[in-house]
């Protein structure tokens, strides 16, 4: 709340400065070492101190978070980031070569997994309630959608669980559901009655309503 107008820029360029190009490429190339999953990189960004996060442009968030990831995984030290001499660090399991880039982007990082006979707990049409949770770590259950009653619209598949995967606790995949809420359930009686909002929720986020 209180962030002002969306204020879209007309004919916005893909990058607003040359360093943003490098920030994008550097982040993806560093991710190409395979040292951290995308879930961990998301947590690195969202766990920047709020005053820093909200004062930073998008790609500045990326650079700051990348620095944290590199230090955490032993590739660089704080002293090196401060301009000190380079010293040997961790050895990456792989380094993304230029020739590999098109194939790597085309392959992406699918995160659906074989449920191996584990059946979904919920079906389309079921009434559910999202849990009230307040984890210190990574989650993909937004605060506005905690403890809210909704309906399963679709069973979407079996996917890597970010709350686990972001913190080195393994992929721990679960069934994911699209859960639909009336606006009034989320925002109260002044909400637009002709509006609905959905999230895509892992099974751990839900209980029967």
């Amino acid at each position, binding site marked *: *709340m209180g*962030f002002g*107008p*969306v*204020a*879209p820029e007309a004919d*916005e360029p*893909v990058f*607003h*400065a*040359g*360093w943003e190009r*490098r*920030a*994008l490429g*550097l982040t*993806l190339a*560093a991710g*190409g070492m395979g040292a951290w999953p995308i879930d961990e990189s998301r947590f690195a960004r*969202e766990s920047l101190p709020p005053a820093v996060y*909200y004062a930073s*442009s*998008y790609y500045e968030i990326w*650079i700051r978070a990348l620095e944290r990831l*590199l230090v955490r995984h032993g*590739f*660089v030290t704080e002293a*090196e*980031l401060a*301009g000190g001499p*380079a010293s040997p660090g961790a050895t990456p399991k792989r*380094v*993304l*070569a*230029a020739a590999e*880039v*098109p194939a790597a*982007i*085309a392959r*992406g*990082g*699918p*995160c*659906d997994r074989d449920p191996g006979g584990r059946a979904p707990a919920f079906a389309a049409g079921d009434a559910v309630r999202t849990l009230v949770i307040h984890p210190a770590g990574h989650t*993909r259950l*937004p605060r*506005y*959608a905690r403890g809210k009653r909704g309906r399963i619209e679709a069973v*979407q598949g079996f*996917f890597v669980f970010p709350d686990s995967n972001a913190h080195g606790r393994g992929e721990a995949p679960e069934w*994911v559901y699209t859960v639909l809420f009336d606006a009034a359930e989320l*925002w109260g009686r002044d909400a*637009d009655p*002709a*509006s*609905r*909002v*959905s999230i*895509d*929720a892992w099974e751990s986020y839900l209980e029967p309503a």
Partner: protein
Amino acid sequence: MPHDGHDENGSTLDPMTARAMALETLLAGKGLVEPAAIDAIVELYETRIGPRNGAQVVARAWSDPGFADRLRTDATAAIASLGYGGRQGEHMRAVFNTPAEHNLVVCTLCSCYPWSVLGLPPVWYKAPAYRSRAVLDPRGVLAEFGVTLPEATTVRVWDSTAELRYLVVPMRPEGTDGMDETALAGLVSRDAMIGTGLAVSR
């Protein structure tokens, strides 16, 4: 490449240029990233992967009911049949606007976006104002984009909290019968495929 905050002419670099350059120099020097790989990534997203891809998907869906049906049942495969896929488009869903319901896509938690069909997201999509207000006040957000929906049209907001990536298929504009796919694709703006715009005939 200098990493002391100055460019080759000795002028002071802005802080983010200096910071990004220093980080790239450090990582390249340690053999952790290849600058040529960074160049290749940038080139892909500046020239090859962008909203013209998604516009082609929409134009095909308008022109070919069989393709539209495939898009409904397996969007990833349908989109792949046009040659698009990969990073941040591995698990696609297409959502179709109708007179009854208008779709709007957001990622309140960060900036998740269907890169494979729309390229890199615009600044506004990734910024706190859109991320917070799209779920709370979608019609207010649409008004900022000059979009006013009929009162009878409900708004459905999709918060991309998992790895599903959403492509909005806007309604085909009136007066476009007989247009070929290339011409139709030209009517499909990036914003229309996020839900902050409509496809309009020219």
